[in-house]
């Protein structure tokens, strides 16, 4: 008897008890569905994390000034300014592994349009900042180096600020907003970025030249030190690790630190942060997928259970088949293929189910829907393996029945 005949035999015998066949493969359906859904969810979450980190800017390092040490109480990083404007210039021009660098001076303040006001964060910086932090402009343009040079009263608004001051969809370029009672001309609006990795609204901010920030917003004179952090974009071919080394060497040299002195600054590799975040989502999705895989094995045991019952119930049928010339291997093949078909059909239905769930969840959490065909094939292959693995014992049992005993079985 060839494979096709055996397959037809198996299918018609499964169709004879549809409900039981369905319930038998339910374990596999749920197992495969869960594996596919879990992997898709894990991939979606990972892609989401990736997206969020990409929105921060790629190949990113952040330099924080050193800690203060007054009266024995040691402040955290950033409490003592130690990075100078000259350091920034040196970083921009002397380090080949750095592509761009920009300061970030930050405070929060009330801004006023003609008829609205809103409290938001103000960032003082240089034009490079937009490239380093992956901000693109939706309207108008960023301010220029010259604006920074002269301390021009120009501003680039984030989308949320535009919404609060003017309403959504308004183009405010050319309008005047007041910050600290000073009129600032709006020169651009950044494109929407959404959530930051920390869960805050990236777009609830506005950008002014660093010089203007110090003079007008903070009403201070320009000093030697940068009262904030530096964002540095590494050259992608060099990589952030290399840039980290180069920056450390440069700053230690410029700050004239001797061998046994600690750094008076702190450089953090944000791409590394992204990687570790990435790894934890990966670990989580692996965990979920392995739990789902266990349910596949449980489904296999369900198949074995029902196949054993079926072999006992059909003892006379086996006897009849043997009496008219079925060889032990024909009987073995019949029951093995029944188990295989149960598992594979369960796998197919489960795959469809898993895809549906993944799609639903992706829509719910606004993740990208990522379905990897290799996962589907793997899950189907695994369920086939489960079918053969757990079907083998009942099938062997059937094939070893003695024809005359089987015929006598009541």
């Amino acid at each position, binding site marked *: 008897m060839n494979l096709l005949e055996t397959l037809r035999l198996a299918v018609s015998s499964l169709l004879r008890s549809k409900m039981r066949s369905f319930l038998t493969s339910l374990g596999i359906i749920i197992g495969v569905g869960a594996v596919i859904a879990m992997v898709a969810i894990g991939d979606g979450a990972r892609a989401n994390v990736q997206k969020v980190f990409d929105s921060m800017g790629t190949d990113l390092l952040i330099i924080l000034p050193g800690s203060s040490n007054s009266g024995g109480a040691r402040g955290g990083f950033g409490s003592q300014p130690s990075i100078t404007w000259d350091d920034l210039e040196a970083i921009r021009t002397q380090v080949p592994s750095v592509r761009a660098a920009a300061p970030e001076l930050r405070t929060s303040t009330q801004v006023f349009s003609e008829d609205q006001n809103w409290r938001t964060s103000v960032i003082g910086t240089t034009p490079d900042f937009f490239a380093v932090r992956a901000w693109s402009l939706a309207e108008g343009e960023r301010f220029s180096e010259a604006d920074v040079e002269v301390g021009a009263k120009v501003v680039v608004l984030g989308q949320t600020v535009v919404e609060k001051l003017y309403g959504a969809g308004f183009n405010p370029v050319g309008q005047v907003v007041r910050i600290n009672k000073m009129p600032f001309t709006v020169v651009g609006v950044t494109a929407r970025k959404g959530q930051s990795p920390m869960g805050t609204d990236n777009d609830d901010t506005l950008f002014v030249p660093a010089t203007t920030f110090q003079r007008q917003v903070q009403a201070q004179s320009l000093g030697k030190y940068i009262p904030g952090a530096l964002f540095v974009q590494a050259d992608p071919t060099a990589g952030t690790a290399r840039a980290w080394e180069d920056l450390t060497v440069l700053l230690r040299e410029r700050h004239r630190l001797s061998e046994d002195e600690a750094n008076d600054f702190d450089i953090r590799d944000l791409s590394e942060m992204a990687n570790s975040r990435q790894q934890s989502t990966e670990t989580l999705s692996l965990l979920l997928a392995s739990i789902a895989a266990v349910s596949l094995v449980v489904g296999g045991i369900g198949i074995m259970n029902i196949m054993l019952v079926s072999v006992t119930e059909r003892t006379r049928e086996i006897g009849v088949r043997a*009496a*008219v010339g079925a060889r032990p291997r*024909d009987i073995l093949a019949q029951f093995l293929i029944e188990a295989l078909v149960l598992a594979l059909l369960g796998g197919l239905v489960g795959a469809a189910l898993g895809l549906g769930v993944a799609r639903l969840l992706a829509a719910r959490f606004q993740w990208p829907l990522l379905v990897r065909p290799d996962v589907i094939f793997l899950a189907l292959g695994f369920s086939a393996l489960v079918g053969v693995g757990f079907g083998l014992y009942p099938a062997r049992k059937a094939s070893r029945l003695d024809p005359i005993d089987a015929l006598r079985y009541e």
Partner: protein
Amino acid sequence: MNGNRERMPLIALRGASKVYRTGDVEVAALKGVDFTVEAGEFVAIMGSSGSGKSTMMNILGCLDRPTTGRYLLEGQDVSRLDRTELAVVRNRTLGFVFQSFNLLARTSALENVELPLLYAGVSARERRRRAREALERVGLGERLEHHPRQLSGGQQQRVAIARALVNRPRLLLADEPTGNLDSRTSVEVMVLFQELRREGITLVLVTHEPDIAGYAGRVVVMKDGRILSDQRQQPVPAVVPPLEEAVS
């Protein structure tokens, strides 16, 4: 070679015995039986209940093996064959008809009859053709798609006979084929058997009824696992009585 094969008996049991062991109790169902059937014979086996008729038939049908002794079928010692080889012999050389029909439930008459051909590796189309032919042969050409429970006992037994015949065996074995049938249906089956006998098929059947044994050309009587007597006779031609007579 072929001529040699023609001269040897189709069936030859040599000192065949069968011991059943149930727990500590041993039952000797066959006690060193020598039994020979030439090709073309029609043999009826009789004997009281428990005399070992079914035990011998199961051995002849390669469904079971003798505990000691030899069974030569077409000159081949089948008591030495393994399970797979026995399955092939059951499939190719002989057909078996059971008292309880042993048809597959929820399976059409046609599919039941196709079964031996399925395991013989015959193509689907050829299977269908030959199964239909066999069913027509036993007078069930109109009942191809019926399931066993939609058929009368006599019809079911005829399906079983069609199944036994479909692979064109040399030997047809029947263990009380008319045991569950009324006398009229029994005679119908015997008409068919006598026809098969004329076509050259060798038949061995077990029966309790002397009437049925009368249709055979040789009657073997068993007792306590041994052959008590073995006589040739002039077979009575089987004729189905007209319907009115059967009713009266």
